[in-house]
């Protein structure tokens, strides 16, 4: 007799960790995307160079390699972090690099005339960015950010490689212990799908909030 209730609990615990990785990873990714996206448009050469290197490096190497470096190689250099922090960092830095290009594109798509109106009203360059361009660009970024968040969710399973007991990891455990393949993998399928749906739904809600009274901004 297999104790399915116990195994279900195990999988739900894994799912919880996956949710945590996704949420914290998304926060890191958002911050990195904003910083690097704005950095690429900076007036200062050095800032642009740093932002560009970050973006190119994290888009040019795979998330496996990044995770292994953060978890296994950094400790050799004297920087050791928990496996959860390593997972969050790899996910956030990786997805943030893709997000940075979204941020940049969205900022570029807000018309030059909005900048000029800001200059004519004597805003500083930061005030123009913060109060005029960002709110309009944000509306444009949101749908793509939603997709990125779902990509991030799907990428979280890489952390099972550093023995973090996320949903994928727990499904493997259940499979090994019960000998059943269908049940754990069906559970995995349903749980990931439910999470992805929740992200879509939350993003749509957010989109509706920020676009209130704003029809016509997005072209």
């Amino acid at each position, binding site marked *: 007799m297999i104790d399915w209730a116990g195994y279900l609990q195990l999988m739900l615990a894994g799912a919880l960790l996956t949710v945590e990785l996704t949420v914290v990873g998304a926060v890191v990714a958002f911050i990195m995307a904003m910083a690097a996206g704005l950095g690429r448009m900076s007036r200062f050469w050095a800032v642009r160079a740093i932002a560009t290197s970050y973006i190119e490096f994290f888009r040019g190497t795979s998330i496996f390699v990044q995770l292994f470096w953060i978890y296994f190689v950094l400790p050799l250099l004297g920087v050791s972090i928990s496996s959860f922090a390593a997972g969050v960092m790899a996910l956030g830095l990786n997805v943030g690099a893709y997000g940075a290009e979204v941020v940049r594109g969205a900022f570029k798509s807000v018309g030059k005339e909005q900048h*000029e*109106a800001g*200059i*004519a*009203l*004597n*805003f500083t360059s930061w005030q123009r960015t913060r109060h005029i361009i960002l709110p*309009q660009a944000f509306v444009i970024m949101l749908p793509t950010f939603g997709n990125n968040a779902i990509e991030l969710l799907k990428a979280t399973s890489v952390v099972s490689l550093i023995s973090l007991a996320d949903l994928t990891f727990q499904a493997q455990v259940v499979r090994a212990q019960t000998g059943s393949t269908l049940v754990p993998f069906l559970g995995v399928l349903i749980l990931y799908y439910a999470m992805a749906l929740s992200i879509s739904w939350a993003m749509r809600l957010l989109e509706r909030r920020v676009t209130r009274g*704003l029809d016509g*901004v997005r072209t």
Partner: protein
Amino acid sequence: MVQPIIQVDGISKRFGELTVLDNLSFDVRPGEKIALIGPSGSGKTTILRILMTLESISSGIIRVDGEPLFHMLRNDVLVPANERHLHKMRTKIGMVFQLFNLFPHKSVLDNVTLAPILTKGVARADAERNAMSLLEMVGMAEKAKAMPVQLSGGQKQRVAIARALALKPRIMLFDEVTSALDPELVEEVLNVMKKLARETDMTMLLVTHEMGFAHDFADRVLFFDRGRIVEEGPPKEIFNHPKQERTQGFLKKIIAAGHRV
């Protein structure tokens, strides 16, 4: 004699090979209402954009209130202005654009209050009180809570005028502020501008193809052609007895196109 509020002294503006303003000079007295007219591409928009510091100049010097606009004195030598100097100079000047350029994510009221709050540190309550009286003046007080998308072109432009006025600039620049509007909406914007011209001592420079309006509004008309001022004078003289052939040709064409003079 009062010091001119604007002194444009031998400036040129080039975009690559193209010379758009060619050794241009003119002065504007405080409170003067100036209309800039002339054929398309003659540099009217460019000179307004330069005065608003949206474009740089290639050579020459502009003084506003006696102070160089694009230069500052360092050890008695004129050097290119830094951002801080430009920021200071911009407090004297406001501009209204052909396509309004309202902030689409801000309500009408917020469009008008944002700059005073952020750039002058005005308290929100004071900024809103001032904004409401300006919106009253342009006939838009009822729409204070509306978003720009909900407004007609003429209404947007009146809000844009109120927004520029909220910073209390001494000089206002208007670039064809009615040319993007449906004909039946032109009048409401022109009426606001007439009221401004009557009731304030602001210096106003206006680019327009509405010759009738230029005639009533302006103390002086500057006729631009190919980056130079070909002829200038009071509207009566320019419109009724133009001396230069090019001015005559331009006015004839405008009348033929159906504009009132």
